[in-house]
C-alpha cells in the first residue's frame, strides 16, 4: 500500500479534491449574474456566487441580505428533519443511502434563495440553479455579510441543496462546466 504524502506548497484544496464546479451564467437573463454550484461526490450541492457576479465587483458593500423571498415564504423557516431507515447501519460505502430529508422545501431551478441589497441600492436575487431539497441556508452571512464578499466560494456560501438521487446526474445537464463557463466569460 503506497503512502501518499503531499509536500507541495500549493496542495489541491478541499474543493478541488471533493467537489466539481458547475456554473450558471447570466441567471434569468441578467448579465453577469453568474452562480457557481459546487457538487460534492456525495451529490450534495453548495450554491455560491461565481467570482464574476456583480456583487463581488466594483468594491460593493452589502446593505442587507434577506431570505424572506415572499410574504409566505422564508428560506429561514426551512425545517428539515431526517427519516432514517433504521435497519441498516450507516457507512459511507452504501449508495443510495438510507436517509431522506423530509420537510425541506423542494426547489426548482429558478426558485429564489435570497435577495441581496448593496449599499449602492443595487438589488440581486440569488437562485437555486438546480432542482432539489433545500437542506440549509447560510445564516453566517446574515451576521457577517463581509464573508460573502471575502470568501464567496467557502464561508460565504448561500445554501446547500440535495438533489433527488435519480436526478443527481441529470441536474448538471443544464449547467456549464468550468471550461464552458470560462469560454462564455471570455466572450464578454
Amino acid at each position, binding site marked *: 500500500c503506497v503512502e501518499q504524502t503531499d509536500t507541495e506548497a500549493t496542495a489541491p484544496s478541499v474543493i478541488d479534491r471533493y467537489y466539481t464546479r458547475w456554473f450558471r451564467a447570466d441567471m434569468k437573463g441578467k448579465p453577469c449574474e453568474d452562480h457557481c454550484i459546487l457538487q460534492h461526490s456525495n*451529490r450534495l450541492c453548495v450554491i455560491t456566487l461565481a467570482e464574476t457576479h456583480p456583487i463581488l465587483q466594483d468594491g460593493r458593500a452589502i446593505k442587507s441580505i434577506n431570505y424572506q423571498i415572499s410574504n409566505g415564504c422564508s428560506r429561514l423557516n426551512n425545517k428539515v428533519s431526517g427519516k432514517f431507515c433504521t435497519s441498516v447501519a450507516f457507512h459511507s460505502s452504501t449508495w443510495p*443511502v438510507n436517509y431522506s430529508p423530509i420537510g425541506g422545501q423542494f426547489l426548482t431551478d429558478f426558485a429564489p434563495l435570497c435577495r441581496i441589497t448593496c449599499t449602492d441600492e443595487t438589488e440581486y436575487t440569488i437562485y437555486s440553479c438546480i432542482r432539489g431539497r433545500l437542506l*440549509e441556508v447560510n445564516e453566517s452571512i446574515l451576521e457577517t455579510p463581509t464573508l460573502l464578499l471575502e470568501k464567496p466560494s467557502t464561508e460565504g456560501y448561500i445554501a446547500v441543496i440535495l438533489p433527488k438521487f435519480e436526478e443527481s446526474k441529470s441536474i448538471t445537464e443544464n449547467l456549464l462546466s468550468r471550461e464552458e463557463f470560462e469560454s462564455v466569460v471570455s466572450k464578454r
Partner: protein
Amino acid sequence: MLPLKDGDKPVVHKLLSSGCCARCVLRFCCVSVQAAYRKPPQETLEELRVFIGNTENGKSRQSATHSAAGSPESQNAVGSDPPGGPPIKRVKLEPAEPGAAAAEGDAAAEVKVEEEESGVCVACLGILQELSGPNQAVKIAERVKEGEYEFDTLVLSVSLPAQLCVREHSCWLHVKKELREKSSALGKDDVVPVKEAFKWIMQGLVAKELGGVAVVIRSLFEVSVEFTHPETEADCHFLASTCADCFKPTKNKQSVFTRMAVVKALEKISDAVFLKHYAFPPPRPSSSCVPRDVQCLHASVFIAGRYNKFCRSLPQTPWLIDGERRMESSVEELIAAPVLSSFRAAGFNFSSSGREDVDVRTLGNGRPFAMELLNPHRSKLSREEMKQLQETINESSDKIRVRDLQIVSREAMGRMKEGEEAKTKSYTALVWTQKAIQSQDIAFIDGIKDLTLDQKTPLRVLHRRALAVRQRVVHRMNTRYLDPHHFHLELKTQAGTYIKEFVHGDFGRTKPNMSALLKMDTDILELDVESVDVDWPPSIPE
C-alpha cells in the same frame, strides 16, 4: 400396559372410529407416561382395541356363562405400575385365546367397534405415525452428522402446520362433550400436545443415533424439524371470516395463517361458532405431512479484539456503489476471512468502537471491534488456537493488524457503542497552510486547553445524517513544525469530533477551526488515529 381408566373408554371409542391414530388417542386421554408413546403404534392400537373390546365382552360375559376363556383377569389386571396413571382398572395385554375368540365373537358383534381403515390420522396428520420412529431419528442424525458441528448438547425443535391446531380443537371439543356427559372436565391444557408426544418419542432415539448426546430443553445447538401439509392448509381459512382481526395482511407473500394467528383465533372463537364451521371428525387426509429438510443452527459465537489499519486506501467496510465494488477489500473482510474459516461459520456481523475514513490510518493499540459469528460449526477454540488465528490474520495482509483477539459474550456488541460515545481519542494530522509560517506562529496552539467546537453536520456526510450542531471538545493540542507550509498537529479530543472539519473549517460550518485560529486558509493532508481510549476488550499478553 395402558394407563387408562374406564371413563376413557367412550373417548377411545369415539376417537378411533373418527380416524385418530393410537398415539393421538393416548394424548386425548391425557396419558403422560412417555414410555407409552414409544411403543410401536400398531402395538398401541391393538391394546386400545382390546381395551374397548374387552370391556363390552366382560360385561356380556358376566351376564353369560363363565365358560369363555380369555382374559378373566381383565377386570383385575395387575402389572407393573407405570408412574403417573391412576391405577383403578388396568387392561392386560393378552391376545384372546382362540376358544375365547369364538365366544367373544358373538359378544363383540354386539359392540361393533367401528374403525375406519387405518390411514393417516385426522389429528396429527401422520406426524405421530410413520413420521416419528427410528427411521426418522436416523435421518435427523444423518443431517446433524453431515454438518460436522461441535456441540455438547442439542435441543430438538419441531414446527407443525397451523391447521393442526384447528383439528386438535375440533377433537378436543368433541371429547369434552363426550366426557361432560360423564361429568368429567377436560381442559385443553390437559391434552398432551402433538409436539410434546413427538419429542417424547424422538428425543431418546436421536440421542442414541448421535452416540448418547444429551437432548435437552435449552441448548446452544438447535436441530429443527418442520412439517408441512399443503393438502389441508384450507382447514384454517374459515377462521378469517369468524375472527377477522386476528389475521393481518402481511407485507410479503407469506400466508397470513400463521400458527400464532390461528391459536389466537381459536382462543377467541366460541364453541358454537367453531362447530358450525368445522366438522367433526375432521376430514381424513390422503397423505401424511411432508417433513422438510432438517435445519441445524448453532447459537452465535462472539469474538472481539483491536485492529490497526496501516493503509490509506482501505475502507473499514466493503465499498459498493450501485452494487459494484469501488475499492478492493476492507478491514472487516480481511479480519473475517480467517475467522469464518476457523469457526466454520456461515456469516458475520461486524461492529467497532467508532470508524475511520478510508484514507485515515489507525495506529497505537488500535480500535476495539467485535464480531458476531453466525451459525458456527465450531464454537470453542483454545487460547492457543485463538493466538494462532490472530497470527494467521496478521500474516494474511500488511494493511491491517489484530491484537487481543478473544472469545467474548453477546454483551460485547453493546460495549462497542459505549466506547464510541463516551471515550476520548487521539490523532495526528498533517496540516497545510496557505501562507508561509514559522514555528513561533503555531506555538500558541499548544497552550489551548478544552476548546469547545460547534460543528454543524459536515457536508461530506450531510446526505446521510440529519442537519444538527454538535458541541465537541478538543482537550489539548501539540504542534510540530515541518516547513513554511506544513506542520504536524497532535490532538486529544472528545469522541465524535470531526477532525478534518476542525482543520479546514468545512465552509465555516465548524467554529472555531484551525483556519480561523491561524487567520489563513488551512487544509488537512493526512490523518492518523493514534489511540482510541477504551479499555476494552481486555488486553492479552503476547
